[in-house]
């Protein structure tokens, strides 16, 4: 099983013009198979889909040009 320092999960989020996340897909590596990394992936997916995270705090003019975001989550912040 991976340690916290080794885990990084990538998710792709499609955002509409208002900054609301409409779709979340796994990144190029797919859904992790390691149980711990998979739980991080699913927690990150829940965070992105949580209504509290929308709209994203991104300038409106930038949202007009960008509608795909790649989020890279790492739980290293837990390690002190």
């Amino acid at each position: 099983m991976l340690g916290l320092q080794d885990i990084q999960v990538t998710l792709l989020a499609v955002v509409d013009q208002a900054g609301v996340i409409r779709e979340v897909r796994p990144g190029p590596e797919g859904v992790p198979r390691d149980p711990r990394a998979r739980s991080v992936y699913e927690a990150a997916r829940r965070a992105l889909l949580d209504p509290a995270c929308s709209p994203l705090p991104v300038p409106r003019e930038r949202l007009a040009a960008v509608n795909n975001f790649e989020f890279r989550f790492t739980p290293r912040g837990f390690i002190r």
Partner: protein
Amino acid sequence: MSLATPWVSRRTLLAAAALAPAVARAQQQTTVIDVTRARTDPIPIAIPDLAGATGDAQRLGRDIARVVVNNLRGSGLFRPIDRQAYIQTPEAAAQTPRFQDWRVIGAQALVTGRTEVQPGGRLRVEFRLWDVLPETQLQGTAYTADINNWRQIAHVISDVIYERLLGERGYFDTRIAYISETGPRDRRTRRLAIMDQDGENHRFLTDGRFQALTPRFHSQRPADRLHVLRRRSAAGVPVRSRHRAAGGAGQLPWHDALPRFSPDGRERGARRRPRRGYQHLHR
């Protein structure tokens, strides 16, 4: 480029030329965001009663859900949602969860299930764990056991939920062995006792006729083997190690202290303490 098949190359080039701006635009339109400051909040989880067709099944479904709620709340890592807020009924949720009803009350995870009392005193429990926001099933499992073991099934379900959502093994299906001490200081009665990790299913394994000390579970078969040091009297030196199985007890041939099972569970080890006072490790 192959001269023998120029039309293929031309088509490939034309296709590439047509796709190039789109690919470039897509690459430009992806922004990478690194999230490195992890923090943890309790996961809001909805655990309605497990559905059942009969009165007994409904009662067991209610009891199992109550144990799971208590386990997860006690861990501090989950926040079970007050069932007064539930919109969908347990029976309907067991059929097909209406995710918008659970999303609107703030649930991120949902547990549904069904209990069935079978002939011969058997209990079958099905449960499903759902990720509410992406509307996906994370786990679906069924257990069949003696109806008297309904509480252990609840602990196992709690472990599965814990492991599936946090990536770490759960600890709810755990029993604690300890020495109960009662009576005045000069005439203590020490009894070996065992209970579930939540304090339920408590029972005494010895009756207090001998002093029981330092209980140790068997490393491989903790469910039915337990080591206990027993002493004939409070002042008596002879100390014997006993292992207690489900129904009886065995005895080691030496006087010893701190008995333990080996990691593979095949042997028992102890420190031998003859009257001269020095110790040896024995197995």
